[in-house]
């Protein structure tokens, strides 16, 4: 169980809904992952809008909590307006806040992010900011009213996994009581396990599942990996050491001459 913004969630995996081969595979992957939060977006309505209606019906039928995002927004104004529109459509104060600053890396514009977070928090939103692993930016986001932080571990969709373990470890150490969700950059279940072993509270991913050869199988694998990492963190792992230590007791060992 995972307490997030006053809501108890059965899973520590949050899953995106984009890039699946079909709506049916998306629905099956969500079920297989065990997630209870899916991310969605808003885009311009096409004439007629029936495809969008079908997607919306599918998402509602999943019965999960919805986390709308402001993906694709490059300015504070765009992000704030999109967040307001998402609140009206999805009926939730939760918003995954993205203010993109670099088109190649999809790195967040952390200055715009802090400004947008402040505006939205003051307006009653529960802001989940997509940010970097920078501690100072994290402080500013908390000052702005965020109760959760979502650092990347590598660029969105890169599948690189945690490229800066030290920064993630440092973030966990500096903010022991803030829910920290690794968002973006995970490629393999072992990456998810690694960040969960560091003590992160949850992970949010999309591409690694949606673009796998078998998204349903990969969703299940990530669900298990997240659980394994969490349980390992809670169970107290052995620290590495430079010398061998026999695992079999040496006491009572026979002596042959």
């Amino acid at each position, binding site marked *: 169980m995972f307490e997030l913004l006053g809501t108890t969630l059965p899973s520590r995996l949050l899953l995106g809904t984009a890039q699946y081969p079909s709506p049916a595979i998306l629905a099956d992957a969500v079920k297989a992952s065990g997630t209870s939060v899916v991310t969605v977006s808003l885009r311009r309505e096409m004439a007629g809008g029936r495809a*969008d209606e079908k997607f919306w019906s599918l998402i509602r039928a999943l019965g999960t909590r919805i986390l709308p995002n402001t993906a694709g927004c490059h300015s504070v104004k765009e992000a704030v307006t999109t967040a307001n529109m998402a609140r009206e459509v999805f009926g939730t104060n939760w918003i995954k806040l993205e203010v993109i600053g670099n088109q190649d890396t999809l790195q967040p514009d952390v200055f715009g992010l802090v400004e947008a977070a402040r505006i939205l928090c003051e307006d009653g939103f529960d802001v989940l900011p997509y940010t970097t692993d920078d501690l100072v930016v994290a402080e500013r986001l908390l000052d702005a009213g965020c109760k959760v932080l979502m650092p990347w571990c590598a660029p969105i969709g890169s599948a690189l996994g945690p490229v800066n373990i030290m920064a993630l470890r440092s973030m966990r150490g500096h903010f022991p009581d803030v829910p920290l969700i690794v968002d973006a950059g995970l490629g393999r279940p072992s990456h998810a396990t690694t960040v969960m072993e560091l003590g992160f509270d949850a992970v949010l991913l999309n591409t690694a599942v949606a673009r796998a050869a078998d998204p349903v199988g990969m969703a299940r694998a990530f669900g298990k990996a997240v659980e394994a990492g969490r349980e390992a963190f809670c169970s107290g792992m052995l620290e590495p050491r430079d010398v061998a230590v026999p695992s079999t007791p040496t006491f009572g060992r026979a002596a042959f001459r």
Partner: protein
Amino acid sequence: MKLIVNGEALEIDATTLAALLAALDHEGDWLATAVNSDLVHRANRAEFRLSDGDRIEILSPMQGG
């Protein structure tokens, strides 16, 4: 009246936001609307009067990560 709807220039008779949505066959409780970059709530669309040159965004749920 000349309007920019989802980035496209349109010449249309609608005088309110609700009338514009109906004229474009955009109806449903899954839509969100903004005029000139500010949200216009669903409940206010019928009385929201459009002006020449207004920029309207009509958004709906999509897949997202």
